[in-house]
């Protein structure tokens, strides 16, 4: 099913300077009772965002509650998305309005889930991650640019780094294809494989 293709994303960013952000923090289990993909954004980081689960009582020191920060890019500490395989974490991030997550290290399942939801996981060096945190914290209005075709991420004042992305995945993101479209297109090949396959 075609999604919106991704090319160059330029935006301010939200700095979440925390390591090992697990998917239970991104979206706690008690919000996984829905049977659709929509509406998870309002519970993104629920227990870091609100005192005692009370929407009228936001935690002042949590970055999503800080009005100076906004944008389509979330910059986070290393080992982002570890723990549970819940894709609801990716749905919540996308639904909240992020198209890119930057970290120095992503957990495997989260990375797949992000890509399947057209969120670009940009893995940068620990040094460049610090550059980004520094730049955003110094000037929250600074614009970060993620150029998918060129595979670069850069700051306004000219600091930039190349990031890796699987060539196949890059093609999917830039054209709005998803893996299911691809797999369905080779169904015949799968059936031929099954003919000789025993287990």
């Amino acid at each position: 099913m075609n999604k919106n293709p991704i090319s160059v994303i330029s935006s301010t960013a939200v700095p979440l300077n925390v390591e090992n952000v697990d998917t239970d923090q991104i979206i706690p289990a008690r919000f996984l009772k829905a049977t659709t993909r929509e509406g998870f954004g309002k519970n993104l980081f629920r227990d870091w965002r609100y005192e005692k689960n009370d929407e009228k009582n936001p935690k002042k020191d949590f970055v999503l509650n800080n009005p100076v920060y906004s944008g389509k890019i979330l910059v986070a500490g290393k080992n982002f998305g570890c723990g549970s395989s819940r894709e609801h974490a990716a749905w919540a991030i996308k639904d909240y309005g992020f198209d890119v997550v930057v970290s120095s290290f992503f957990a495997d399942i989260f990375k797949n889930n992000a890509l399947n939801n057209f969120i670009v996981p940009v893995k940068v060096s620990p040094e460049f991650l610090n550059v980004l945190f520094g730049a955003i914290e110094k000037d929250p209005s600074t614009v970060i640019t993620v150029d998918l075709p060129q595979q670069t991420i850069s700051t306004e004042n000219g600091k930039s780094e190349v990031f890796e992305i699987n060539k196949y995945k890059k093609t999917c993101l830039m054209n709005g294809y998803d893996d299911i479209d691809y797999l369905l297109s080779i169904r015949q090949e799968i059936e031929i494989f099954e003919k000789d396959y025993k287990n």
Partner: protein
Amino acid sequence: MSKTLFEKIWDKHVVTSIPDGPDVFYIDKHFIHEVTSPQAFAGLERRGLPVFHPQKTIATTDHNVPTIHQELPIREELSRRQVQKLNENCAKFGVELYGLGHPFQGIVHIIGPELGITQPGMTIVCGDSHTSTHGAFGTIAFGIGTSEVEMVMATQCILQNRPKVMRINIEGALHKGVVSKDIILQIISQISASGATGYFVEYAGSTIRGLSMEARMTICNMSIEMGARGGMIAPDETTFSYMHDRHFMPKGAEWDKKLMEWKKLYSDPDAVFDKEITFDAAAIEPMITYGTNPGMGIRITGVVPNPENETDESERNNLKKSLKYMGLEGGQRLLGMKVQNVFIGSCTNSRIEDFRLIASVIKGKKKDPDTRVLIVPGSQQVAAQIRAEGLDKVFEESGFAIRQPGCSACLGMNEDKVPPGEYCISTSNRNFEGRQGPGARTLLASPLTAAAAALTGKVSDVRSFLDEQNGN
């Protein structure tokens, strides 16, 4: 060409490889449950697709079910609807469902092996990260997201990049009071919560070969907690005798034929691993976690690390944040600390062997009156076996009540939660902030350590109970 166990199985399941891209990877068995499947079924419906091979997918309800009065309608509306949705989807798409009330119902990673669905050499996926549990049988088993659940249902394949392979050897004899949960907590505390990311792990060595299947499953289960894609153990006589005669296992001549195949599933002696680590079993002690990821573990007699001794700034801040959440101080001992809750359950430790171990510690003793203890068997079959072996009497006499099967307080999705700010010694696999309920403080440990805490109401060293027993 010599191959690792992982490579032998992987290569057999590659339908085709996308140039500069992932492999199209064929899946033998697919488990689903109520929480991560509804959106996948909805996706199929949107595309007007059937389930390609419905007989290769098996469903159960576990994450979001109550653990008392399962015979009654589920009270909580959203949970009831989610379970109902799975019933409808399975009926509509022709998928076998072991739902509430079915004698095969239980936590998805408990029922696969015990029913004989999980077999060596298979590729197994489920929308749940602890699918790695099935690797104890020499399978490639791992957790996937809901989009991938949809892919498997639509085409029996997913796209996967081949991970690197790491071998972790554990050699030697374990000390008394040390069980497989301690081994894996020790490994993760050394490797860290992200140290095996990008790898598939094979566990090997004399210690592993000496473990029961239940104990091996506990180890493979927690592979994901160090970031590994999955964990696996080569099948051997222990595996085959566990599997023999299980409900869905081949029987007679078919079994003999399969057995010949399964016996070829091991890493060739000169196979090359991308990384190899060895642990000495004799150096492992009962373990407990103090922090908010499973890598933050210490010996039960140890002290909580002090953030001031941490040289790396971000590590220091992380540790501070964790300790603040946990209400603990660097340098503090956990032994003797009061705990208000004990949770015995989850796909890590709720098999029959776990209950036998616990019964051996609590037999003839009384539960601490102030401690809430939640005991949840992993499946209906485990619950039945507990009764058949008379273990339920042992639990009852000690003052413990046994609940009905489900994930329960492992993830705090139903009403089984740990109250904010309270401590819980838990046999589950994750101590993340709020995992067992908002504000809950989880200390991961073995079933033995949990049993000891249930008796004393404190973090206790189970070895003192075992000494006592030996003295009798």
